């Protein structure tokens, strides 16, 4: 089984996520980029699980965990973004500077 293309796909997905996080100014887009990164990791988990033929299916287990956590994280993240938007009428990350010195 040739895993290289799949790894490259996952890496490409991850890099796109990083790019999105660092570059997009919209908080919702940043959250979406995080989802991309998480899914890239999921792909890797599934790939290595299948590749190594793990009897305990640890890779699949972890990807399910990650999906659950991602769902929760996105829920909280979107809620925060919503509240910030409600208070400041913007979703621009550059305006989220409440925690600066």
């Amino acid at each position, binding site marked *: 089984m040739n895993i290289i293309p799949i790894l490259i796909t996952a890496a490409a997905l991850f890099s796109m996520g990083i790019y999105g996080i660092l570059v997009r100014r919209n908080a919702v887009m940043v959250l979406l980029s995080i989802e991309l990164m998480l899914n890239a990791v999921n792909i890797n988990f599934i790939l290595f699980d299948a590749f190594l033929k793990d009897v305990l299916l640890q890779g699949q287990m972890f990807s399910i965990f990650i999906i659950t956590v991602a769902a929760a994280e996105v829920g909280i993240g979107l809620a925060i973004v919503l509240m910030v938007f409600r208070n400041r009428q913007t979703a621009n*990350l*550059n305006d*989220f500077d409440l925690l600066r*010195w």
Partner: protein
Amino acid sequence: MSTSLPALFAEAKSFSDGGVLAQYAWLIVVLPFIAALVITFLGKRMPYGGAEIAVGSIFFIFIYSFALLILNISKGVVNEFYVQIGSIGSLDLEFGWVVDGLSIMMFFVVGTVSLLVFIYAVEYMKGETRYTFFFTSLTLFAGSMLVLVSSPTLLQLLVGWELVGVCSYLLIGHYWEEKENSSAAIKAFITNKVADVGLMIGIIMLALSAGTFRISDILYKATHGNENLSKVALVAGVLLFIGAMGKSAQFPLHVWLPDAMAGPTPVSALMHAATMVTAGVYLLARMFPFYEGVAAPVKELVLLVGVLTLFFGGCLAIVQDDLKKVLAYSTVSQLGYMVTAIGAGAYTAGLMHLWTHAFFKALLFLGAGSVIHAVHTNNMSEMGGLKDLMPKTFRTFIIGTVALAGLPPLAGFFSKDEILASLSHEGYTGYLTIAAVGAFITAFYMTRAVVKTFFGEYRGNRDPHESEQLMTIPLVALSALAVVSGWVNIPGVYTGFTSWVGTRGISINEYHPESFDFAAMSLGLFAGVSGIVVAYLLYMKFGNAETGDEKIKLQPIWKILENKYYLDDLYIKGVVNPIKTAVAKSVDRFNTQVLDRFVNTVGLAMAFIGKIVYSNFDQNGIDRLVNSVSVGTDNVGGQVKLIQSGRVQQYLTLFLSGVLLVSIIVFVLY
């Protein structure tokens, strides 16, 4: 708590250890102090103003001491208990209690006399100022004396000694609103203090040379030859005796005792019979083996002072018009007898006189108090004719007088006779003569006092009547004791008293007459009877209470006696004034010019040094360092905080570049 009956007590093995009764004997020492506390805090709210607590606690002491006395009579008790409270070097500081024949006898005397005096005082002091406080001090007074007589160590003895002094000060000065009374209190306190210095130095010398405060150890060493002790024995013996001279009012330190009459009469009775003046005699008796052993030469001094006291004290009693002062000088004289006996080596005789004297002198004082209560004056020139007006007081007073004058079969006869017999046996013929003259004087002044108080016409302007029952009952009880207390030691018949007080850890080596010394007895008896007869002739037959004094006013003796041998003047001019003017002033000058100046200079120098240190070291050194540290921290923080921009993506960029950097390093290295 530890009990000590080591080898030292080998001689006392035949006695009982007293069992539970001895173990809990501390109760009677502690109880008065608890009672005094309770009276202080609750007394004023009680129906009898706290007097019931005082009487109750003393009643318990009386019962307990009576039980101990019975035990001592039947078996003989010797035991000591120590509680260590600390130590200085190798010297243990111990308190405790000793239960032996001597202390039990004293417990009983203090218990009995205090009980009766307390009951009497309930009525006598009714309506007086500071009634509750009076009972507090009175209870403390009895308690202090118990601390003193129960002490197995010289340290506790000193503590009790001083406590007695303080309480007497409080009680003599009970009516301190009048200057005279408060100065009498101060006089008593200071005179005692002068003597106490001697006692204190003596105790320190003994303790240091014997290496212990325990009296029984010191006595053991004194009787079994101890080099350290023999070296200081003479000086320490004299110093201890000076202490005893102060408390037991020996000539020439007796001056405080007559002035101490300023206190209420129950106080005088207690002080003269049981709780204060006997302390000195008790000390001599307690240390008797010491005076018999290494300090034997001191006994000559003791004897001399005792004889001087009994003679001069008695003479002074003749010229007094104040009834209480007659009794006070009589006490001085009788204490002289006790000290004489101890000085002559007659331990039993001295204590016997202490024992009988306690009862009949308490009786006489309480009787005098009863009279004074009725006529509201101390002066016999304003009394007279009270025989029919106050029959109970009169009869009991007569019993006391006869007991003091030494007529058989009353108490004073036996005790005084024993002292005379001992003097005669030891070969002190000169002293024996003086003691017999003293007995004559005693009988004379007591008869004079009785005639002036109770016979003839009433010369005052009051309406005297017999005192309340609460006051006459103690009188009757004491007169019974004044009759029978002498019977415990009749030579040849029953000599129980000798073994009571001889029950000691260290065996007592003394002379006491086994049978009547008929020469001494007839001498004493003759002196007593002739004293009474002469006084009777002078004041009743050929004269009366007013004119009797005229016939014996031999100048210049009378004048000297009236001025108390000019001793007070001597003390004022020779001691008090020089101290006041010369010593105090020069001390003051030394104080202001040398000590104060030195202290001020040191203070100024210190302030100067302080200023220098403050401005240079503190401000420029430590403060600057602390400040620059904080300023530096603030500056660095101000720079570093700028990283905290609040932009999430900037953080992430930094984080990612860090991760990349680490990855590259790891990659390159491996």
